[in-house]
């Protein structure tokens, strides 16, 4: 079932990330001075404060660092339980909080290899916005 998250609202700092998301590509910022791959998307490096940030297409692959299955929650999310909340460690380094989708929640484990998927989302007025980054378990 579709997760009830609201569509994100891009700003001038993260436009390349959401432009990529609309094309189904995971586009991340990297620091031109120290090489740090930055999450969440923004125009300044949290490691060295450099503003020399460029954008590149990441592999979209990673593995589950930790996960938890939520079974009780109020509101719209209560209609889609059980669902998996996870920290995914990307091949490029960052650890991303996300949901694992298209899965049997009982069989998602720490260490599972995952890949990025982008899911359509609607905003408060019911209009579709930029898609949301999620992950699904991948074979091999």
């Amino acid at each position, binding site marked *: 079932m579709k997760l009830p*998250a609201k569509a*994100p609202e891009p700003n001038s700092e993260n436009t390349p990330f959401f432009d990529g998301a609309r094309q189904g590509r995971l586009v991340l910022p990297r620091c031109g001075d120290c090489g740090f791959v930055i*999450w969440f998307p923004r125009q300044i490096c949290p490691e060295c404060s450099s503003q020399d940030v460029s954008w590149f297409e990441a592999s979209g692959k990673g593995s589950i660092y*930790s996960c938890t299955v939520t079974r*009780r929650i109020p509101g719209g999310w209560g209609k889609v339980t059980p*669902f998996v909340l996870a920290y995914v460690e990307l091949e490029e380094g960052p650890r*991303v*909080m996300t949901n694992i989708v298209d899965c049997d929640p009982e069989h998602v484990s720490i260490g599972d290899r995952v890949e990025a998927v982008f899911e359509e989302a609607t905003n408060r007025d019911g209009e579709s916005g930029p898609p*949301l980054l999620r992950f699904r378990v991948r074979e091999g």
Partner: protein
Amino acid sequence: MASHGIKDQVAIIGMGCTPFGEHWDKGADDMLIDAAHEAYASAGVKQDDIDAFWLGTMGSGVSGLTLSKPLQIDYKPVSRLENMCATGSEAFRNACYAVASGAYDVVMAIGVEKLKDSGYSGLTGSKPPSDGTDSSLTAPATFSLLAPAYAHKNGLDDETMKEVLTRIAWKNHKNGALNPRAQFRKEVAKETIAGSPLVAGPLGIFDCSGVSDGSAAAVIVRAEDAHRYTDKPLYVKALSFSSGPATGALDPSYDYTTFREVRASAEEAYKQAGIDDPRSQIAMAEVHDCFTPTELVLMEDLGFAEEGTAWKEALNGAFDLDGDLPVNPDGGLKSFGHPIGASGLRMLFECWLQLRGEAPPERQIESDKTLGLTHNLGGQPGACVSFVSVVGSELG
């Protein structure tokens, strides 16, 4: 530039605490009146004797009027504070400093929260980092991440980890059963706890603290004045607070087996109180067991157990009521309940009873040690605020 602490400069001379629970017939106003008047009676003072008030509440009101209106306070200073789930402790800390500074002679710290009748049960969801998505992180979900991390680090299989968490819930229910003011006053069998419906990750409903209404209050004076009010004051030995950079969720070096903020606040409190071995020097501790894995991890963060051994100590009963270092003898957040703004003061209330020998006989701790510790946490693993106090029944 340094933190100096105010060891033995101020003392608690009276306390009050309402029963915690589902008070469908009471609002925050009623509970504030009950807790304040119990504290006045306990201290042998009248409301007019109080020079200033500190009110802690997260969501049951804003401004000093939240207190001055129900208590009909005559034009005295009332500060209203909020510091997430450590709100009650923050009210206490600031009230103590006001007395230590010499600004006031007699002050009250009071906390309250009305969580029932709010339209849903429990707190609103925690906010994930602003990465442009809404990832639906509940409080039980975020604290559940401690369990696999701790198990992995210390080589515990899932079954053993569940047994450890169950043991902690079982112990706190057992203590709560001896506490007439607790929200849940029943022992619960380990099989029932372990078999309860899951909420998030390995956490079942019995691994979560009670959502409740309640209020607690303390009257504080300078230490040298304390004996004018009581033969058994409780002296403040240490007050520490740590608010972290909140980078855990984005920091690959953070592994969810510890609270860095707790370690910082514990170290500071022990320095202020002159404690070098908390395990052997403290008579009892009240800690922030919002979820069972939190209490487990806290035992190591607070220095009550060696690194990697808290799970064994918990299984062996070291933190039981009759154990080496009783933890949450009043039932803790788990059984006493967690009305946010009141919880920090509720922890001090148990120290007040225990260290003065006034707990109900069935849960009175027999000890020749004179120190009690409270630990109060707000936020989540990787992004929290942490408070530690040490109080004692003797000077020095």
